[in-house]
């Protein structure tokens, strides 16, 4: 049973059937899935949710598939918890982390979008899937497509972190490392996608794919007891996640499931690649592309496809934006690990560093509720940390060596004797 009415151009409103249509043929605007919310309201209730699986598919009616889900059956419904030690460090009262660094199976929020994209790709009759990726999407497409028995072509910029390359190759896709930036990979894939009959998850089946990000928003609200947080700080690469969290909040409100109160959405980018942040801060109408130069490679998209909508979404919510330097993001990764025991990737460092800046600047008042979006895992981006996390204390396998190397620390520790 499907609740999808069809696809609709976000710019001019033209309607399209629910097939492989990804841009409006008339104005090139992106097309978005349109649902029958009246029908959804009758079946999607908080009472019915209690019986459902703890995965992203618990929001099945609000996702663009026709039959039963066939990918990502264990993805989503990731941990959401109050971060009291980090709150103390940042000087805020009520802080939460939504932690997709432990998403099953590929440790980033891209498991969500790929679960939806591959279920839909199979429904549409594709036997081959592909993507252009900064790393996390590559991992997710490679893994989910392996399990779904689909052929897979993955395109990445050649200079990605080793962790992200290995975590794609292990699933035996055809991995193509393009000598260029992500934006160049994306342009190439648009041309390849026009020539080969593949489901490019972020290109020709993007309208379905992108809807998967809404589940990150539904979960925040459900796990907070159907109460909207006052602030959500969200990392931005192409800008889609911001727009989809906003859509999730809007849908839950429409369905009568969201408590009172408004949510300000804030965008976080790396200083070396901040086209969306620049546009928000200038309150501009046009997103100027940039040439990325940052260690936050998963956010290194200089020409963000959803930049325009992300900007509008943030400003309409009353939110703001800021950018973090390479140094600030590393310090934030360390702070998150030290206070909350969560090891996030560089993008998570960006999000936390920006949250800190917005709190310090008074944009986020210290007595209001804040959710920080952690969307990826630090084990994948270890290179920039190598010289920044200290070293192990190296000793001989003797008690004497232990006590002499740690003399300073042991002087204040007690023993059993």
């Amino acid at each position: 049973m499907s609740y999808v009415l069809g696809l609709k151009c976000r710019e001019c409103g033209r309607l399209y059937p629910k097939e492989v249509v990804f841009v409006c043929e008339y104005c090139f605007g992106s097309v978005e899935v349109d649902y029958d919310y009246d029908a959804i309201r009758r079946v999607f209730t908080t009472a019915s949710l209690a019986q459902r699986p703890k995965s992203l598919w618990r929001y099945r009616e609000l996702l663009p598939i026709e039959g039963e889900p066939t990918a990502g059956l264990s993805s989503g419904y990731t941990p959401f918890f109050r971060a009291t030690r980090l709150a103390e460090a940042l000087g805020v009262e009520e802080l939460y982390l939504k932690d997709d660094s432990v998403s099953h199976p590929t440790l980033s929020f891209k498991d969500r979008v790929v679960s939806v994209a591959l279920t839909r790709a199979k429904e549409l009759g594709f036997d081959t899937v592909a993507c252009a990726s900064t790393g996390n999407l590559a991992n997710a497409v490679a893994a989910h497509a392996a399990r779904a028995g689909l052929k897979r072509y993955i395109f990445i910029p050649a200079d990605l972190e080793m962790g992200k390359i290995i975590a794609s190759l292990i699933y035996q896709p055809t991995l193509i490392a393009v000598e260029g930036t992500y934006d160049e990979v994306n342009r190439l894939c648009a041309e390849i996608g026009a020539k080969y009959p593949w489901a490019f998850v972020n290109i020709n089946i993007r309208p379905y794919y992108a809807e998967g990000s809404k589940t990150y928003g539904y979960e925040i609200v459900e796990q907070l007891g159907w109460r909207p947080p006052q602030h959500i700080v969200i990392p931005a690469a192409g800008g889609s996640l911001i727009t989809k969290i906003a859509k999730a909040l809007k849908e839950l409100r429409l369905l009568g499931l969201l408590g009172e109160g408004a949510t300000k959405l804030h965008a976080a980018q790396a200083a070396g690649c901040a086209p969306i942040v620049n546009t928000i801060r200038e309150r501009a109408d046009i997103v100027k592309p940039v040439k990325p130069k940052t260690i936050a490679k998963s956010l290194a998209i200089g020409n963000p496809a959803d930049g325009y909508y992300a900007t509008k979404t943030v400003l309409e919510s009353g939110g703001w934006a800021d950018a973090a330097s390479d140094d600030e993001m590393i310090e934030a990764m360390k702070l998150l690990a030290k206070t909350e025991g969560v090891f996030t990737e560089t993008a998570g460092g960006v999000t936390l560093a920006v949250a800190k800046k917005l709190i310090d600047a008074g944009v986020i008042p210290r007595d209001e509720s804040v959710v920080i979006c952690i969307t990826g895992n630090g084990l994948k981006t270890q290179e920039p940390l190598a010289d920044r996390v200290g070293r192990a204390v190296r000793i001989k396998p003797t008690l004497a060596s232990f006590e002499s190397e740690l003399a300073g620390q042991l002087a204040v520790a007690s023993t059993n004797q």
Partner: protein
Amino acid sequence: MAVTVRIPTPLQRLTDGQGEVQCEGSTVIELLSDLERRHPGIKERICDGDGKLRRFVNVFVNEEDIRFLQGDQTAVKSGDEVSIIPAIAGG
């Protein structure tokens, strides 16, 4: 003096199904006007009512985004390749 223009799938109906066409002009905007002469109706898809490139259309001259060059005034010469590509998502 021909420049190769790659046509995105949604617009190939206007070029008789051709993915690549030859056009003439010394700048991107002149090229688009020539494209319109050869394939009437195509320019209004790419440009808005004021003749400016639409927000979600990316144009590349020899693989470089024209927003890093001189926009629609970017010079083109014989043998160049121009791609017209819709904005696409990322991750």
